[in-house]
């Protein structure tokens, strides 16, 4: 039936089980996914459960593998841009930014200031959209249906903004090598300003409706605790790391593009999990960090709106891009963690290697460690709190 030999190898030692069971029953193998409402996308988790308690978990990936890295070696530099939207399809702008920065670093070209401004605004707006989805679907996993619908009201406005500037709603391919494809249409910046104002009121409603709700806190506090050492050992990044109290954010610690100035202007902080409602590093902390980050992104967008000036939006680069010989790694702060592009070129029109370090891939590995010992209902909460996107895991 199922390869039980592998299932035994998971690191669940019975000592850690919360509910000490004297009656020895036969463990039940339950397949959560690949088609399951709680696994965000197409991922299968083989859960070995003893009654309601999960004793072993094994994620099985590859259902959404589209050989993105192999295509990277057959397609020209600029033609690879649309593929980068399809990794983390909830934050396509950030993916474009990551890839473009890696190639620009290798080419050593300078981006005009207005292009960097528009890039930062789009990346931060997309971060808000991505965290909104994380927050909404997490409510769905815990059983609250309405926050999901409220969340989509705001995200719909964000998508309309992106529709005005680049024409697409989900896969933008807007931030390109050397800047952005076209300048912001008239009136766009003032509409972003209105979006920020309205979003701040609605944000307080989200917190009241779900984050501080007693049942939500009961379902997420002290569940799926990731201590600091385990987080570093697994190489977690982003809200997963900050949820466990590790103060690390690429935008502040290894700033790229405009973030040096933005951090100096002191308009945004880095929210950290403090274990307010349970132990440090539990599910509640991770969703708390994501919700607070939305407000920080609003402040960054406000700063950019304040200091944007007119000017060119694209550096002067030839129509067909030839990247000089060499290799470069550029890591940026994606909503889910550090998205790294490792680009190797031999001076031609096509890449030698285009490696993508997806944050969801590493964040997912930690499930094997924290799922055993939790109840079935908690496994859903823990999987939801890692906020993985399967497109980025399988590439």
């Amino acid at each position, binding site marked *: 039936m199922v390869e039980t030999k592998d299932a035994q190898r998971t690191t669940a030692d019975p000592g850690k089980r919360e509910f000490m069971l004297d009656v020895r029953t036969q463990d039940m193998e339950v397949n959560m996914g690949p088609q399951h409402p709680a696994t965000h996308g197409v991922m299968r988790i083989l859960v070995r459960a003893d009654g309601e308690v999960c004793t072993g978990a094994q994620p099985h990936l590859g259902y959404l593998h589209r050989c993105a890295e192999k295509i990277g070696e057959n397609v020209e530099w600029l033609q690879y841009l649309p593929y980068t939207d399809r990794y983390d399809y909830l934050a396509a702008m950030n993916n474009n930014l990551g890839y473009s920065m890696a190639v620009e670093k290798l080419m050593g070209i300078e981006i005009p200031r207005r292009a960097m401004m528009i890039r930062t605004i789009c990346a931060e707006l997309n971060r808000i959209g991505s965290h909104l989805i994380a927050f909404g679907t997490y409510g769905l996993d815990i059983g609250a249906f309405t926050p999901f619908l409220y969340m989509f009201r705001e995200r719909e406005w964000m998508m309309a903004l992106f*529709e005005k500037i680049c024409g697409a709603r989900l896969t933008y391919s807007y931030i390109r090598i050397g800047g952005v494809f076209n300048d912001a249409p008239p009136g766009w910046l003032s509409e972003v300003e209105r979006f920020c104002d309205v979003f701040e009121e609605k944000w307080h409603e989200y917190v009241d409706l779900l984050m501080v709700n*007693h049942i939500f806190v009961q379902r997420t506090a002290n569940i799926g605790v990731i201590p600091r050492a385990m987080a570093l050992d697994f190489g977690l990044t982003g809200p997963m790391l900050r949820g466990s109290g590790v103060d690390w954010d690429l935008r502040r610690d290894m700033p790229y593009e405009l973030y040096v100035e933005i951090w100096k202007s002191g308009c945004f902080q880095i929210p950290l999990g403090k274990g307010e409602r349970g132990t440090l590093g539990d599910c509640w902390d991770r969703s708390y960090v994501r919700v607070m980050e939305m407000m920080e992104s609003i402040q960054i967008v406000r700063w950019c709106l304040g200091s944007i000036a007119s000017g060119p939006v694209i550096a002067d680069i030839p129509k067909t891009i030839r990247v000089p010989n060499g290799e470069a790694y550029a890591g940026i702060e994606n909503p889910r963690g550090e998205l790294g592009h490792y680009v190797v070129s031999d001076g031609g029109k096509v890449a030698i290697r285009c490696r993508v370090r997806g944050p969801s891939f590493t964040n997912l590995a930690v499930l094997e460690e924290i799922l055993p010992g939790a109840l079935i209902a908690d496994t859903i909460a823990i999987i939801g709190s890692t906020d993985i996107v399967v497109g980025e895991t399988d590439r």
Partner: protein
Amino acid sequence: MKATAKYFRNCIDALKTTLVGMRITGKYLLQKPITVQYPDERLPIPNRYRGIHYLEQEKCIECLACARACPIDCIEMDAVRHGKELEWISFTLDYQKCMFCELCVYPCPKDCIHMGTEFAFVSYDRSEFVHDLLSYRGMARDAKVRMLEAEEKKKAKEEAKKAKEAAKAAQLAEQEGKAAAGGAQGGPGQG
């Protein structure tokens, strides 16, 4: 004592947050919904929207820049060249493969391929997804007129050239005639 305090705090906290949550959902219950009944009412589509392509055929010079720029090679075009004029046969875009990334619009030197605001195109048959962006086949009337004029100009140029050659040849022949005649008189002088 701490446990009983926690016990009652749990109860009060649960009730309080439930009422807060109900206040928010109740507020939206009374407000007017914001959704749109799709087929009857529609949201305005911005003009930069990436929908189905449209081609300004007369400006196109069949330089294949857009076909090369497309990551998935879904643009194919075929035309017969008559000097500078083009006789169009087909300009197809395969929408089964197209991913609406708008990379084909930028490299066009004549700026004649754009993406429109139409997005709904369904059909029962896969072959209908291969759209032909041409508005007319063959040659436009003014293109034909220009072609004919170009041909006449070419013919006229040829005749003029022939006439010049003929004239030169005639002149040459004349000179030989004179030379032969002169030669006969002063032949050895020119030898």
